[in-house]
Every structure is written in structure tokens, then in C-alpha cells.
């Protein structure tokens, strides 16, 4: 990490959407079909179970709906904030004048993700003395900044330098090159980072229930502590299903944004 331009090591963007993927029908409908089968199967299975007081209380329509909405709000708000912080930061850090800051910023982002998530939330709770939505969102932001920041930087750095030189030769300003050449070419890698952050946030938001911010963790945790398998499995299916839905939607957006001709 000491050689400033080489920031890519070990980041490995998970999955980069290319415009050429657009045609494959299976890649569009495969995931929705899979999710529909899983959700329907779980629903039918729960219906077939004999449900006691705990199950009837935790698995009501109102309860499941409100917990899912809380979970989505946590995920959406925190990811949005991360995007607003990490993408401009990533752009800044790839400009020549900011090179010396790269190791410092990455170290901070690494620490954010390196601390165990429960510990991070506990530290934020102790530091702010507040419970509920805001501190949990702060925790999620700290926890998921790294993938978007890294991928923005990697995405910009992998743009072929000859393209930038050519653009400059055409008389484009630095800003124009950034907006019309570098960023469009970096979008697939950046989207991969956003998808990673989304999945991290959906998973980590299950801890929100310990800090008064609700979410689907309430269902999972009750299933564990009260040893109610139906409750536990419903919670787990909802959380992982939500992660897949969100990832799928982000993938769709990524494909639509991917520059043509790549």
C-alpha cells in the first residue's frame, strides 16, 4: 500500500456487470424465480406448522412488514450516505494532488471494517450515548465505506491512461475527462462495490435490534433465544432473501448504467 498508484491489491471486485450481459434471459429472470420459490416455500412451510404463542406473536403480517421496512430503511439510508461520502472521496483520492492521503484514508476505512460489527455498534453507542436509528446508521456507514471507496478508486485507476491522454489531446478539461471518460468507464467496478456494501448492510442491520432500531434481527434473535425454529428460519430467509433482492436490483441498475461498447 506504500506505492501510491497501486491501490487495487486484494480488493477483487466481486462481480462486474458488462453491457454484453444484457441479452441473457436467464440472468434476468433466474434470481426472481429462485426468490419466489424460496419465499413461497417458506410461507407454505410456516403455514403448515403448529404455531405457539411466540410464533403467533412474532410472525404476524404486521410484525413481519414493519420489521422488513425498518430493515430496508436502515440499509437504504446507510448505503445512500456511504455512496455520498465514498464516491466523491474515491474521486478525490485518485487525483494526483491527493496521492499522499491515500494510505491514511484507506487505513481509517480499513479500521472501520476491521472492527467486529457488534463491537463497532457498541462503541458508537457508548461514544454517543444514544440509541435507535441514527447511531445504528452511523455504524453501518463506518462498516461499509471501504468497499465503495476502494472500488471507486480501483475503477478510476483501471481506466486506460491512453484514453485519458487522447481525451486531453482532444482538448477536454480535467473535469470533462472525469465526467465523460473516467467515471463512465469506472461505473461497473463502482456498482460492484455498492452491491458489496448493500449486502454488508443488510447483514449487519440484523444487529440493530440490540440497539433499539428494530429490523429483522428481532425475528432472528427471538428464534435463537427462545429456540423457536420456525421463527428463526423465517427470519433468516427474510434477511438473506432481502440481501439477494437488493443485490439483484443493484445489478439491474448496474447493467443499465454500464457504458455501451464495453
Amino acid at each position, binding site marked *: 500500500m506504500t506505492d501510491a498508484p497501486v491501490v487495487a491489491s486484494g480488493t477483487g471486485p466481486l462481480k462486474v456487470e458488462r453491457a454484453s450481459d444484457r441479452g441473457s434471459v436467464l440472468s434476468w429472470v433466474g434470481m426472481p424465480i429462485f426468490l419466489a420459490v424460496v419465499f413461497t416455500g417458506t410461507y407454505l412451510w410456516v403455514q403448515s406448522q403448529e404455531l405457539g404463542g*411466540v410464533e403467533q406473536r412474532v410472525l404476524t403480517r404486521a410484525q413481519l412488514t414493519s420489521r422488513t421496512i425498518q430493515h430496508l430503511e436502515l440499509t437504504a439510508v446507510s448505503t445512500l450516505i456511504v455512496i455520498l461520502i465514498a464516491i466523491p472521496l474515491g474521486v478525490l483520492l485518485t487525483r494526483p494532488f491527493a496521492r499522499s492521503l491515500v494510505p491514511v484514508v484507506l487505513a481509517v476505512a480499513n479500521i472501520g471494517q476491521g472492527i467486529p460489527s457488534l463491537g463497532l455498534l457498541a462503541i458508537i*453507542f457508548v461514544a454517543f450515548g444514544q440509541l435507535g436509528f441514527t447511531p445504528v446508521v452511523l455504524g453501518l456507514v463506518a462498516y461499509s465505506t471501504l468497499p465503495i471507496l476502494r472500488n471507486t478508486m480501483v475503477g478510476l485507476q483501471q481506466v486506460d491512461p491512453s484514453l485519458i491522454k487522447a481525451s486531453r489531446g482532444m482538448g477536454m478539461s480535467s473535469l470533462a475527462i472525469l465526467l465523460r471518460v473516467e467515471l463512465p468507464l469506472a461505473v461497473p467496478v463502482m456498482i460492484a462495490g455498492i452491491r458489496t456494501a448493500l449486502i454488508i448492510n443488510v447483514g449487519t442491520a440484523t444487529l440493530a435490534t440490540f440497539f433499539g432500531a428494530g429490523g429483522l434481527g428481532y425475528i432472528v434473535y427471538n428464534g435463537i433465544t427462545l429456540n*423457536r425454529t420456525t421463527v428463526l428460519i423465517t427470519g433468516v430467509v427474510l434477511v438473506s432473501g432481502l440481501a439477494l433482492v437488493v443485490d439483484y436490483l443493484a445489478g439491474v441498475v448496474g447493467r443499465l448504467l454500464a457504458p455501451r461498447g464495453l
Partner: protein
Amino acid sequence: MNRRFLAMTGAAAVITSLAACGGGDGGGSDTEGILEGASITVGSKDFDEQLILGHISRLALENAGADVTDEINTGGTDVARAALTSGNIDTYWEYNGTAWISFFQEEDPIPDRIEQYEVVRDRDLEENQLHWLEPAQFNNTYALAYQADAAEDLGSPESLSDLADIIANDPDLATLCVESEFSARNDGLPGMEEAYGYEFPAGNVTELDTAIVYSATADRNPCNFGEVFTSDGRVSALDLVVLEDDLGFFPLYNPSPVFTDEVYSEYGEQLDEIFNPIAEALTQEAMTELNERVSVDLEQPQDVAEDWMSENGFI
């Protein structure tokens, strides 16, 4: 939170010294040496009261001459239970209410505490060949509490019935912090609300981690009332006022040492002889005091257990 973490790390870092109690002249108890040759692994769950109880078991068994392996602080309820049923540990203290609601997946408690114990004991023996010894005197059950400084604002409620007034006249003050399971159990909030004929306003109930409920109630942020455990040392340390359960809704759950069949079938008589007087001596006051020394004064659970055992002549 801080305090809890400190206490936990401290507890985890300690290496137990296996006291070989040979010389019989130390003025110890009359159970000395009766478990000579036995090899027993002691476990516990992962919170302060359980660490103390685990060390009490360890000291009692060592005093009786058993070769004790210390697996205290085994994990949460499910981990400790799994360790016991799989034979990785031979004993830990379990609350009969936890067995009833969680292991046996029952919904409603049995009001009589002796009957509750007997039903759990018989069922666990029959289904899982696990042996429940006599329950300790103290119970560790649910209660609602508020910070003493808040008394004036809240109109100094004394019992759970008094909450009806607050909920009816001043619903904004009726804020409650609970663990998530408390809000889902029949013997928790839903049953309590039904028994007392009121309901906390929607949106006024916040679910939190167990440890945070205490500090949130003490700080009155975000709740005026909190769900606590009656024997927890933090109740008095944080100056919390416990509301009397005037309708007697919350069941009394007592803990017992639970042993595997492998150990109990061989040493049952001796184990009863060792543990029955200990269970008898573990009163509500005694346990609350021990908990307070660990949770609040940050003493080591093994030191606290050892002091209590020798003060009471068990070692």
C-alpha cells in the same frame, strides 16, 4: 456495557488453580473427600451470575476431592445446554423457566414454583437423562423498574398496577425498554399486559440488548421503565426502583445444578449431599449481593464465590 465487558474479560483471563485438598485438618466441610477419584467438567453460561454459580460448583466439587475441569463461561444458553447434552460438560446451573419455555417450548408457566421445578426435573430426566438437583432459594425472574430520580415525574409508582394510571393519563411517560424475547414470551410483556389490563402505547416499547436495558433505564434514555432481572446486581447499583408484581403474574424461576446421567448415576448421593445445603443457602439477598460484587464492584467471580463458600463453611 463497559463494566460488563471488563468483568467478562477479567473472568475469561483467569487461570484456575486446581486446589488439591489433601490435609483434612483445615476445618472444612464434612463433604471433604467424598468425591475422591471422580472427574467432573463444570460449565456455565456467560453472564455474571452464571460465572459465580459455576465457580461455586467448581469449589464444592474440588473440596469433595473431585478432579474438576473448568469450562466455566461456556457460552450462551443454547451453547451451555448443547455442551451438557453432548457430554462436553457434566454440569451447569440452569433456570427451570428457561428449560420450560425454551428447551421444552412450552408457552405458559406453572404458577407454583415447586411444581414448576418438579415438572421440569421429571421431564428432563425422562427425555434427556439429565438430573436436576434441588433448586436454589433465590429466583431470577422478570420485573419492571425505573430510576429512583424519576420517581417524582412518574408519580412514584409502587406496583405494576400503578402503571395503569400513567398509561391512561400520561402515555408519553409510559416508555419501556425490554429485551426482544421479553416482548415475545407469554410469561413476558404480552402476558403481563393481559394480566394487568393495560397496554403500553404502540411505539413506546424499545427492544434492546439485555445489558443496555439497564443503562437505558438508569439514564431514562430512551425509556422511563425497563425490564430487569430480580437478582441482578445492577438493580441496586444503578439505583433502580423495582415495581411490585402485585398480581403475582411473573413466575418464579429458580436455578438448579443440572448433571449428566454419566456423573449422577455414579455419584448422585454425594452430589445431593454437597449441593442441597448450597442451594438452601443461596437466598435472594445472598445472590443479589454476590452479583453486585461482580457486576458493580468488578471483583473476580471466582474470588466472590470462594469468599461466600468459605464464609458459609462449605469449603
